[in-house]
Structures are given as structure tokens and as C-alpha cells.
């Protein structure tokens, strides 16, 4: 049994995991998911990209949850199904990236503008082991925020 990313080349694992973007070497526009081929900035004819780690923290653009089991190709982690939360997070690069929310957190732990941090957790487990995925984890507990 081993743990491996659910998709290759989109994020690093380890103590300080990060999403991997592609930065155009001509105009410096950054893309996620990673891209290759042609820069999509209409004012740029760049064709070369370097892989860069994206900001590990960002601000919540919005959030929700999935209270019904999504259809395939989603693979439920548990039977019976357990709902999970989702967030769109704005990074310093100016990209907003979707992700599930870290285990143990729900919509009650989030608000628009709140700071979250990237973590890597288990998406689901198959015969070959754990499939890993990036997730967004609230940085400031809502209670702490109210005390400030």
C-alpha cells in the first residue's frame, strides 16, 4: 500500500505542499492546472513554460458543500456517503483555484475573504493505496477571528 497523487504533476506532497503552476517565460502569466504548448494571454506568443510552486495560502472567494453524492467519475470515499465542503480560493498570483476543504471542516468554518492554507489529504483509497489530493484548510478559527 502506498500513497500517490490522484493526478500527476499538479501538486507537491510533503511538509509544505504546494500547487504546481506553469509560468510563461515570455509574459510571466501563471497557469493552473499546469499547461504546455501556447500561452493563452492574447498579447503573448510564448510557447515555453517553467514549473512554479503557487502560494500555499490564499483568501476564500466562495465556498459550499456537496450534501448529495456526486455522480461518477467521482469515487466516494465512504459507504454510506459523507458530505464534504468545497472552496474557491484566490491566490496572490491572481488565480482562483477550487478544492475540497480539509477533513473536519465545513461551511460553518468558512467565510468569503477568510485565509486558508493548502494541505494534502486522502481523496480515496483503492487496491493500490491512498490517492492524494490538495485541499484548503482554514487558518483562522472563526472564534479567534471574532475575538480580534
Amino acid at each position: 500500500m502506498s500513497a500517490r497523487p490522484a493526478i500527476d504533476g499538479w501538486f507537491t506532497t510533503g511538509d509544505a505542499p504546494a500547487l504546481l503552476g506553469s509560468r510563461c517565460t515570455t509574459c510571466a502569466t501563471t497557469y493552473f492546472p499546469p499547461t504546455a504548448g501556447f500561452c493563452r494571454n492574447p498579447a503573448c506568443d510564448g510557447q515555453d513554460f517553467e514549473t512554479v510552486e503557487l502560494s500555499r495560502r490564499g483568501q476564500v472567494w466562495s465556498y459550499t458543500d456537496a450534501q448529495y453524492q456526486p455522480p461518477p467519475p467521482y469515487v466516494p470515499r465512504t459507504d454510506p456517503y459523507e458530505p464534504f465542503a468545497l472552496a474557491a480560493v484566490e491566490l496572490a498570483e491572481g488565480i482562483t483555484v477550487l478544492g475540497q476543504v480539509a477533513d473536519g471542516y465545513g461551511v460553518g468554518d468558512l467565510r468569503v475573504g477568510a485565509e486558508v492554507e493548502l494541505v494534502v489529504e486522502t481523496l480515496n483509497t483503492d487496491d493500490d493505496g491512498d490517492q492524494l489530493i490538495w485541499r484548503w484548510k482554514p487558518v483562522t478559527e472563526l472564534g479567534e477571528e471574532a475575538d480580534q
Partner: protein
Amino acid sequence: MSSNDVAVLGVGMHPWGKWGKPFTEYGVVAARAALADSGVAWQDVDLIVGGETVRNGYGGYVAGATFAQALGWNGARVATSYAACATGAQALDTARARILAGLSEVALVVGADTTPKGFLAPNAGERWDDPDWLRFRLLGMTNPAYFALYARRRMDLYGATQEDFAAVKVKNARHGLANPNARYKKEVSVEDVMSSAVVSDPLHLLDICATSDGAAAVVVASTEYAARMGIAKPVRVNAISTVTPTFPNTVMDMPQLSTDAHGGTEPERTFKESIGDAAYEEAGIAPEDVSLAEVYDLSTALELDWMEDVSLCKRGEAESLLRAGETTIGGRIPVNPSGGLACFGEAVPAQALAQVCEVTWQLRGQAEGRQVEGAKVGITANQGLFGHGSSVILSR
């Protein structure tokens, strides 16, 4: 009114529902209704444009030809359009372009769909380069989850409540009561919405539109052709906007997992704002002149977004118009007098044409039981997957 107007001679629909029949049957019913309404014989139509349906096999991919054959081959030119939820508008735009170029005189535009039950899911197979597949596989991100992101932003940024969203459903359910083509013709209360299951917080089941079978068709012609037929004052198509986004597109759009990057400053306007702006500019008509709007309420909260996107009010003000009854028939700017997707459910390739049908009936004063009195100008708006969206402005 500009020289780029085309005349709407006839409109028709097949009622929305879950009938389980082939999409071609619905399309033919709608087409025949539109032809009868127009007084144009099918043999005289010199162009047919079909809205493609991706769900119904090869016949759906070549919808224009499929409808043409079902109506009886008549030698007309044929085209088929696909632009997700904007499919019908793009098909109409194709017809308009050939008419304005003088290549065709009178065209039949048809969209029809037969839909599966439940969540719309991506195509089958392992599709690791398809964002529409990856968003389900990696994130479990359904369509309602995207709608819920937009809804939550309205709550956190503008103070919208779940009761406001429910009030949109209550209003649209009432609007659709007398609409013979609506699938749901039943009063709904705020309590009904609030007590239905939460699908994706903050949206309840009754905040989210169903998927439906249905069909809509429009007969359009040059204004000269309309005049020759003796139609003194036809409804006119003043604008059809089918713009793509402008880079960087920084608002999260279904089915993407991310947005483009902005270099530190947000673009001047969003994609959805640009859709309406382009329509107003093309029509030479201002938002203040609009009598009614048919906008894409895939969710109740999205109707509120659209009111701002097509400049019926300023950003963050939609709830106050809703609460004051201004978007109800009889109010200052009725929104979705047809009952909207709340009463119809979504039949993708037909929906943008259904919006045009409703606006046409409203402008002719034929929207029995849901008429916006004195309607002069109507606007439609919708957005679909992969940078598609449309807005049509009609007037009489």
C-alpha cells in the same frame, strides 16, 4: 432600430416536461407551431438551423439536418450550432447573419432536447484532459456546487439571505402558473423552499432548476420579407450577443477548476457583464429602456446575479428590487415573466430560443395570464460551459 434588425415572424414551443420521447418529435412540434404562427409554409423556408444536443447520438450532432428530414426535405440550406446553454442564440445568430448578408430570406431555428435524470454528469470513459471530467473525479464538483459558490458570495458580500433566494422561486412559480408550456405550474411558498433538502449549501433543492425535455422554434426573416407579407409591425431582433470572455477571465466558471491569473488588478468587467454590454451596444438600446428580462435562473440566486450582469440594477442591489416586488409582473422591471427555468427546468439547446419565444409573446401582448403591460423591449441572457454565453434584445 437599425438596419441590422431581422423580423420574428413566428414562435412556437413543445411543452417542457419529462416525456421520454425522441428529441426530434419535440422539435417538429415546436417547428410546426412556429411555422403556423408565422404564416410561412415550410416549403418556403430557405434556411434551417438546429441547436445541437450532445446527449442524443448522431441525430443530435446534426440537429439541423435531423429536423429538416423530419419536417420533410425541402432543399433549404442547413446549419447546426453548439454553444452549451447559448446554443439557441448562436443558432439564431447564424440565421440572422445569412439573412442580413442577403444569402437567405426566411429561416427556421429549432432547439430540442431529451435529458437524463439527476445531476448532469460528464461523458463516460477516463478523460484526464477534460476539465468537465476532472472536476467530478478530483473534486466531486457538481453544477449545483458552482451555483452555490455564486449564491454564497451574495450572502457574504451583499447580505442576501436564503429567504431572498426562496422569494425568487416563489415569484417565478407564480409567474409560470398560467404558462401553457411550463413544466411546473404550482404555487411554492418560502417555507416549501426552506424545508426542501440542502443540495449544496446555501442552496436547497427547490432553488435549483431541473433538467427537462422540451423544444422551442423561431421563424425569422428579413424586414423586407416581413413587409412583403404585410406584417406592419413585427417583433424585431435588435441584437444577438455571443461574445467570448476577454483574457484574463477571473471569475470561476463551470466546469473549470481555476480562473485565469490577473496581474494584480481585476479586469474592468466580468465575462457575464460583457455579454449584456455587447447586446446593448449592438442594439443601440439602454438598460433603462428594457421592459422585461428573461435570464438564466439555473439557481434562484443566479437570477439576482444576472439582474446586475445585464445592468438592470447596480451590483449588490438585486435583493432590494426583489424585496420591493419590482421584479414581479406589475413591478418596474419584471424578471422571468415566463416562470423561468424554475418553472421549465433546463432543456439546453432549446432554452435560449424559449427565452426569445417568451419575449416575442410579451412584446406582441400575447402572454396570457402573465403579460407585462406595455412591454416594448425585452432582453434575454444566459451562460454555458467553456466561454459560451448569449444575450438577445428584441423590441416592437
